[in-house]
């Protein structure tokens, strides 16, 4: 077990945990009612939203809360997907165990990447994850008999009990997984782990002086994000029915990153907005957009990528205090809203506590001060 030395006030508080559970239950009720009113295809898409929300929430914890970045989350989706594909090919185990094994394998791959990449501050994790996302497809080419080559591996959707529509059953499984992950992440962030994540993001030196093991914290955050992505990938291929490298191009990693950035780095609620964008923009919205402007097929085929690229750039340029500042601002608003109205379908309140070091790149004021001192 990993021990982080933190003072007593930093121990897991009871209240946020209960609150997250409450939000989770409300969310479950909401999605139950919603899925019952939707067609089979719309349920398929709702399930995909839930699946991407898991991956985006994991990345959001890594980037928004811990201050690291992964440009290749798609690779971990692929790891989770292939794991469950192999499990289905070779033997039939309970779905819960299959998903847990998929999570464990992607967490292990994340660990292998994170340990060397987090030894130094710098762009190492970004570069290595990008390389991983580009490299993994080649592995399935090389060992095509194991990975199923171009055709990939076949996955079967889980059997639905009784007379429940199989698609709806699968959507429920995906939604339930997403809600469980978000409640767990919400609790994690309000625990001492969350505090040490934020402390490392705000100031590595100060965090290590306060007794936080910086490298270990960064590895944990990355492994968590990889595990989320692995679960997301495993759930995704239950819908699509096939695992092959074509399902996990670099653009998938880009979509997840853009969804996270737009939804708001560090907010778990934002993961849902990002996931909606990731599901609907590439498939439907971009085509309608291209048709509306009578663009040729080349433009239509590339519009999603163009929009996601533009989203990444524009959000970064127009959010004046950067990822961290925007996240903090958003967090503040969330807290104010939820405490004032006691309402809100926020699955979690990621950011109700103050950041560990206030003077470090806080609001716009200290930002300008820091710039001018330079």
């Amino acid at each position, binding site marked *: 077990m990993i021990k982080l030395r933190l003072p007593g006030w930093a121990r897991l508080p009871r209240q946020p945990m209960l609150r997250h559970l409450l939000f989770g239950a409300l969310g479950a009720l909401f999605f139950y009612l919603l899925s019952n009113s939707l067609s089979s295809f719309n349920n398929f898409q709702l399930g995909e939203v839930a699946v991407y929300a898991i991956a985006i929430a994991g990345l959001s914890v890594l980037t928004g809360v811990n201050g690291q970045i992964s440009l290749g989350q798609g690779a971990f989706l692929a790891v989770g997907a292939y794991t469950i594909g192999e499990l289905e090919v070779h033997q039939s185990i309970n779905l819960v165990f299959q998903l847990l094994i998929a999570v464990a394998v992607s967490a292990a791959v994340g660990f292998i990447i994170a340990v060397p990449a987090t030894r130094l501050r710098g762009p190492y994790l970004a570069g290595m994850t990008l390389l991983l996302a580009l490299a993994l497809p080649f592995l399935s080419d090389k060992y095509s008999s194991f990975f199923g080559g171009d055709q990939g591996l076949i996955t079967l959707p889980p059997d639905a009990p009784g007379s429940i529509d199989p698609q709806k059953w699968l959507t429920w499984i995906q939604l339930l997984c997403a809600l469980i992950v978000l409640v767990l992440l919400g609790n994690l962030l309000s625990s001492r782990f969350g505090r040490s994540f934020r402390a490392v993001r705000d100031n590595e030196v100060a965090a290590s002086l306060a007794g936080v093991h910086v490298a270990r914290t960064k590895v944990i955050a990355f492994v968590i994000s990889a595990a989320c992505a692995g679960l997301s990938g495993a759930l995704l291929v239950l819908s699509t029915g096939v695992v092959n490298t074509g399902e996990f191009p670099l653009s998938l990693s880009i979509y997840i990153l853009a969804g996270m950035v737009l939804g708001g780095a560090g907010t778990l609620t934002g993961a849902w907005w990002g996931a909606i964008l990731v599901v609907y923009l590439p498939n439907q919205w971009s085509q309608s957009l291209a048709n509306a402007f009578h663009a040729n097929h080349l433009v239509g085929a590339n519009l999603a990528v163009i929009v996601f*690229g533009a989203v990444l750039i524009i959000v970064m340029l127009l959010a004046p205090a950067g990822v961290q500042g925007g996240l903090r601002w958003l967090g503040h608003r969330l807290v104010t809203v939820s405490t004032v109205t006691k309402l809100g379908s926020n699955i979690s309140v990621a950011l109700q506590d103050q950041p560990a070091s206030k003077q470090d790149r806080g609001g716009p004021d200290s930002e300008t001060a820091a710039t001018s001192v330079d």
Partner: protein
Amino acid sequence: MRLFWNITLGGVAEGMIFASVALGLVLIFRATNVINFAQGAMAMLTTFIAFSVFGKGVGYWPAFVVALACGLFLGGLVQLVLIRPVQNKPPLNAVIVTFGLLILLEGLAGAVWGNSNRGFPAAFSQSGLVIGHTAIAFSHFDIFIVVAVLVLVVLVAALFRFTTLGLRMRAAAFAPEAARLLGVKVSWLLTLGWSFAAVAGALAGLLVAPTSVFSPTFMDLILVYAFTAAVIGGLDSPVGAVIGGLVTGLALAYVGGYLGGALEPIGALVMLIVVLMIRPEGLFARPTARRV
């Protein structure tokens, strides 16, 4: 044995290409602490522009010059419009901006030129040279690759060593505030640094395109290989970038030649992991600059 030498020669040519992209990455990283993940995509764009110019029938060399000129312009433009606003922000912002630019440019190129694979002309013959009576896996074009990158490296070295522009650029990179107090116009030199780096990238694009499939994503792998090379070289040493490029090119050539080409990207990943575990500061980093 012949296989070994052929692989080695191929590795040298590949390595020179990695070196030129890595050099661009390092020039930018050293000055602004940003890894330009769009370095490859910018090179892709300038190469596609050259492709269009070439298609107008103006011949290879004018298209070549146009690509380099576009690199000069594009690099400066990107720095001014996209990088300068995030320069004093958390470093993640710049990473996300350059990554966003990478896919934006690939999407735009796909929209204009299509996503299918094409062929790109080479300046010289690409069939192997014949020495005595044996053909070797090294062509006139490979010689051109090696010479072109060597010329680039010599020009960059001469710029830094013998010119006051290079002196000012080094000062702007090492100690921006001290440089400003000595009248050095730091912000404009950073823009110029991006321009020069993009020219190095544009050259790499022109050298890679004939030897691989030519599509909007053709520089993706080159970029991550160059990143590997730059990390091996220590990320802020231009000499290290060149040597790191050669090391990476050779290592990947052996992996590809003996174990199969599909393992090259995994080989690069393994190299990165090994280097970061054994010697995280790289082989040629400035000792003072990297402490955190």
